[in-house]
């Protein structure tokens, strides 16, 4: 199978190809054409055509086509790389190159299907009920009979996608429904979701000129981030820091998502063990929404032991085993290096490795490695490991007085707070370093897609601005509503 680049409607076979192999057997799975950053820069000059092609279609029709695409993606057989690909083929191929068990690959497909199936509700929620035509025409009248104008900030959204977290794709699925094209740089090991989704969208009638697939090395990502009017990148804390304050780039890094047990509920900790465990281990702990720390003022020893008993026994299983829960680290040496780093932090004062009684955490394969769920108890937020997050089920149970929690937790993508204390709830609602807040026993991994995630994507792609028109003014046509690409 050869996955070619796709230059807004035109397949492009590169002379350079990345050979993807099965993470356990080394058998070839696919070849992926590799392009350079210059191709991206060159094609971006015509990025306006992507938006124009979408705007020719009625916005409600686009949503319907996306819903069809969702069904094709999750349930149908689509042509990917010149080969008919069923959902099971997809799961097998994605698992083979990412190390994620096949059952988790299938579960992620359902998430994407859910988002596409509910696109109309999602857009309604994120736009606070604006008529979708507003994004097509650039202006309109909202339900209070007030004129509003939303100006697209880029004709396409550039995405530098990750290799190790197939769950992130839900973030970019609404983009086409907002009248914006997609320029995707698939992750080196995970081209599967972008390619299958693009194929499903095109088969469902989304214009092929609206979608670009540019697999390649880091210079492709650099070109996207430098030249797209709006782009998203998924990366490490260092990447997040690099693009902090750049309004054109939305960075998704480690989530440092947490459970906070309030003093009024902490004595009932056993009631929440299951949702804490789910939050830690779902999707093999790879997501930014997986819980990496639990804060409580007391019972941390018992909580850590209970979680260790529940999760520590998880064993490595074959990727096609329906019971498999752990993803492999497919980069040779990566799992070992991560474990050595963790091991170096476990013998520090105030740190206890609660899963130690359940056997070695590091499991070495012939070409890859695994890390089994790891629970660590910290007697305060001070040890370095208390602030750590890793790409596998890893969680610290941190002892911390409730009144100091918000000062000590640091940036938190999802916080689930178990407390009925109105004062604590008020503080949580006001805490600006918490992005998504769950109050009550909700797993950190349970997302309400009708609410924004790390900012409202509409606010990222569009600028709300004033537009006043006299009655004699000509109507702005959609053909003129395409923003210039930055740098042109």
């Amino acid at each position, binding site marked *: 199978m050869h996955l070619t680049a796709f230059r807004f409607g035109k397949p492009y076979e590169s002379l*350079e190809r990345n050979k993807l192999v099965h993470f356990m057997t080394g058998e070839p799975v696919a070849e992926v054409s590799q392009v350079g950053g210059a191709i991206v820069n*060159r094609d971006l000059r015509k990025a306006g055509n992507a938006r124009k092609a979408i705007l020719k279609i009625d916005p409600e029709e686009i949503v319907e086509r996306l819903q069809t695409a969702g069904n094709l993606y999750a349930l149908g057989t689509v042509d990917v790389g010149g080969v008919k690909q069923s959902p099971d083929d997809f799961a097998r191929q994605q698992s083979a190159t990412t190390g994620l068990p096949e059952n988790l690959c299938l579960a992620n497909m359902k998430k994407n299907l859910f988002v596409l199936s509910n696109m109309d509700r999602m857009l309604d929620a994120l736009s606070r009920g604006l008529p979708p035509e507003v994004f097509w025409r650039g202006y309109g009248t909202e339900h209070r009979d007030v004129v509003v104008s939303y100006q697209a900030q880029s004709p396409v959204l550039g995405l530098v996608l990750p290799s190790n977290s197939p769950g992130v794709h839900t973030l970019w699925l609404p983009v086409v429904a907002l009248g914006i094209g997609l320029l995707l740089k698939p992750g080196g090991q995970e081209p599967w979701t972008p390619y299958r989704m693009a194929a499903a969208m095109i088969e469902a009638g989304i214009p092929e000129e609206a979608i670009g697939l540019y697999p390649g090395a880091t210079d492709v990502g650099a070109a996207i981030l*430098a030249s797209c009017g709006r782009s998203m990148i998924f990366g490490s804390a260092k990447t997040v820091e*690099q693009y902090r304050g750049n309004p054109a780039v939305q960075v998704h890094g480690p989530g440092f998502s947490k459970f906070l047990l309030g003093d009024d509920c902490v004595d009932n900790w056993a009631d929440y063990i299951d949702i804490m465990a789910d939050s830690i281990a779902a999707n093999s702990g790879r997501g930014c929404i997986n819980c990496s720390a639990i804060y409580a003022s007391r019972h941390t020893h018992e909580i850590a032991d209970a979680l260790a008993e529940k999760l520590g026994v998880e064993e490595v299983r074959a990727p096609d085993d329906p019971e498999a829960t752990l993803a492999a680290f497919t980069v040779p040496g990566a799992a070992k290096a991560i474990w050595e780093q963790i091991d170096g932090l476990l013998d520090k004062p105030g740190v206890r490795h609660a899963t130690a009684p359940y056997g070695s955490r590091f499991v070495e394969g012939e070409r890859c490695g695994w890390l089994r769920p790891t629970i660590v108890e910290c007697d305060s937020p001070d040890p370095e490991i208390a602030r750590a997050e890793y790409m596998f089920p890893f969680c610290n149970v941190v002892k911390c007085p409730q009144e100091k929690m918000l000062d000590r937790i640091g940036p938190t993508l999802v916080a689930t707070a178990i407390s009925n204390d109105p004062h604590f709830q008020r503080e949580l609602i006001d805490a600006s370093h918490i992005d998504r807040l769950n109050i009550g026993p909700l797993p950190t991994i349970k997302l309400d897609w009708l609410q924004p995630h790390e900012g409202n994507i509409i606010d990222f792609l569009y600028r709300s601005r004033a537009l006043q028109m006299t009655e004699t003014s000509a109507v702005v046509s959609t053909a003129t509503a395409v923003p210039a690409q930055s740098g042109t």
Partner: protein
Amino acid sequence: MPADTTEKTPVFDVADEQSIARGKEKLDAHTAEIIAWHFHPSTGSPFWLEYAKTLSFDPLQEVKCFDDLKKFPAFEDEWLRGGPVTRWIPKGFAGQPAYVFETGGTTGTPKSRVNLRDFRTDYEEFSETLPEEYFPKGANWLMLGPSGPRRLRLSIEHLAQHRGGICFCIDLDPRWVIKLIQKGWMEHLEAYKDHCIDQAITVLESGHDIRCMFTTPKLLESLAIALEKKGTTIREAGITGIFSGGTEFTPQWTRFAVEELLDGAFMTPTYGNTLMGLAASRPVVPEDGYTIAYYSPQPRAVIEVVDFDDTNSVVPYGGTGRVKLTTLTKETFVPGFLERDEGERELPYAKYPWDGISGVRPFSKLATATTVGVY
């Protein structure tokens, strides 16, 4: 992307055995002559005369052919750092005007090579490989590449002058480019690139009748895209011939440039550095999969593609190995310098009847520590 020349029928003119044998004879004779010069007390450089005292053999007696150079221990690039640089000047050239060219130097003391006339000789020889149709004699040149203490900067100017033209240059500090990348200041990097391209476009638009250009792949694509945004092309800006260099030259990039950037201008890739001089390429054509194969300017410099572990053994044709460079000029003797690049060993070409190398890229074991800037 290893080229497998052993399994495919070459689409270029492979050198015949007689030519290869003549090339080897010439190289052996040249090697003996260079050794005699560098190790004779009356003509040799202070560095090599002193170094000879530490050897277990007498180079003057025991190095009679190229293979005999294997008797020398590995050349250490650290020797090239710091002064006095005059230790490298052969006594036979004492008192002649000298240049010093630097390489690297983002942090710490850069490596350097002293030159008297070598850079001129190298580029005059290279000039003979340039097709007149695209690099007409008398044409003016644009040097869109690094300025400062670089051999390349002066060499391009000499090449232009040697061919009867004038060279126009820009200011470009590659050490600052590397620092921007290492600091992750990507906005500044883009701004600096734009600053360089702005200078180039200003030169091209100023009526200097420039028809030839040296540049690097990254700058070439930036220039082409900047010109495209202005509604013109490299060819329409007057450029007919481009001489370009850098380890970022890949078959795919070359194909992309030919198909989408050059608008019919001719481009010839080269591989070079401060120590070697310049390796020309055999014609880069679609039928050859845009393979870029370089051939060193033998006998003045020799490239061998050697085994990663046994650096005295070349790999089979089509095999991957590390670049080992030997410089054999009367100004400079460098035996068996292991470059920071790797590639595939190529069959001798009719025009250059000795081994070539394709797929040149940063040495994989060092690549993570190598920052490619404008090269």
